[in-house]
C-alpha cells in the first residue's frame, strides 16, 4: 500500500491569512456534495 515516507506533525493551514471563509461559504449544497467524489446521484 502506498504511504508517504516522512511522518511530520500535522500542520494546519492558516486560513485567517488566506481569507477563505467567504469562499467556503459561497459554495452551494450541491456543489459541496460534488466535492465528495464519487458522490450521490444529484439534481
Amino acid at each position, binding site marked *: 500500500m502506498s504511504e508517504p515516507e516522512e511522518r511530520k506533525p*500535522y500542520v494546519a493551514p492558516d486560513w485567517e491569512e488566506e481569507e477563505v471563509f467567504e469562499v467556503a461559504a459561497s459554495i452551494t449544497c450541491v456543489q459541496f456534495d460534488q466535492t465528495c467524489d464519487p*458522490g450521490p446521484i444529484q439534481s
Partner: protein
Amino acid sequence: MSELGARLWKRADAHCIPLRAAIEITLRCNLRCVHCYNFDRERPRPPVPPEAELSDDEILDAIDQLAEAGCLYLAFTGGEALLHPSLPAFLERARERRFVVRIKTNGMLLTPPRVRALAEARVSAVDVSVYGARAATHDAVTARPGSFERTVRGLRHARAAGIALKVNACLVQENVGEVAGMRALAAELGAGFALNPFLSARYDGTRSSLLKRVDRQALLDLYRGPLADVVAEGGYVPERSARCACARTNCGISATGEVYPCIGAPVPCGNLRERSFAEIWESSPAMRRIRGLRLDDLPDCRGCADRPFCKRSTGTVYTNTGDVTASEPFFCMEAAVTREVHPQGAKHERA
C-alpha cells in the same frame, strides 16, 4: 463553483486538509428506519448506552480541534441531531469558529421555533431525509406512522424561514417507484435532491439493512426512466482513480469519539478520549493507508471496463466487506447499469 472555491478544494486534497467533518452528536433517534446504518433499531437496547456518548464539553472541544486543523465545513448528524438538547451551544461554538454548518436530520423536529433558531445561528443548510413520495411508503421505511407528514411539515417550516434545504433519499425496495415523486417534492420545496442507492451494513455488525437494496432490473428501469437526465449528465469519469475524499478532505467523529476517515467509513483510527484529532488525522496507520490508496491497490477494479462509471465509495465498501481494497457486488452492478444507459457507455463495451 468559483475558481477560488475549486482552488480551495484542490489544495485541501493535495495537502490532506480535513476541510469537511461530520460529528455524530448522538445515536438517539425518534425513527426506526429499516436501513439505518447506525445499528439495528429493532434491538431492545442500542449497542452504545447514552452515557457513553460524548459529553457537551467533549463535543465543544472536538469542534475547536477541527477548527484548529483547518476544517471549514461542519455537519451535525446522528441519530437525530435535533434531539440533542445542547445543539444550540454547538451551533454557537461552530459560528464562533466560522464554520459553514449543515444539519442532517429527519426533519420531524423542524418546528417554527427551531427553524428560527437555526436561521439565527446562520446554519448554511439543512439536509432532510425523505424515504418516499407518499406517507405510506415513507412511514413504512421509518417504522413510524405519521413521520412523513411531520417531516414534510418540517421542510415547509424551514423553507419559510429561508433555510437552504436538501432532500436526501436512500433508495430502498419500498420507494423505488416513487423517485420521480420525491424529486418533484424536493423541487416544490426549492430543495436540492440526492439519491443514494448504496446502502451500508450496520455499524453494529448486523446486515439486514442490505436486504433493502434494489435489484438490477429496478435500477435499470430507474436509470432509463425518472433518473435518465441526471445519470446522463454525470456518472462518467474517464480516468476515475481510486481516490475519494475519505481521509483526504473528509473525516467523521462518532458519538463515542472515534475519528473516522469519513462518517460513512467506520474504520478505527483513534479516539478523541485518548489522542488529539491532529495526531489521529496525521499518524493513524489506517488513515494513512486509505489516504494513499491507488487503483493498483484494488485488484478487482484496476482492469474493470466499468470503472469510468463506478461510484465506489471506500467507506461503504469497507462497511459491507471489511476491506477497503475489496470490490462490492452492488457497486459493480450499479456501474454496469450506468454504463448500459449512459451516452458514453458504448465506448466502453466489455472486452
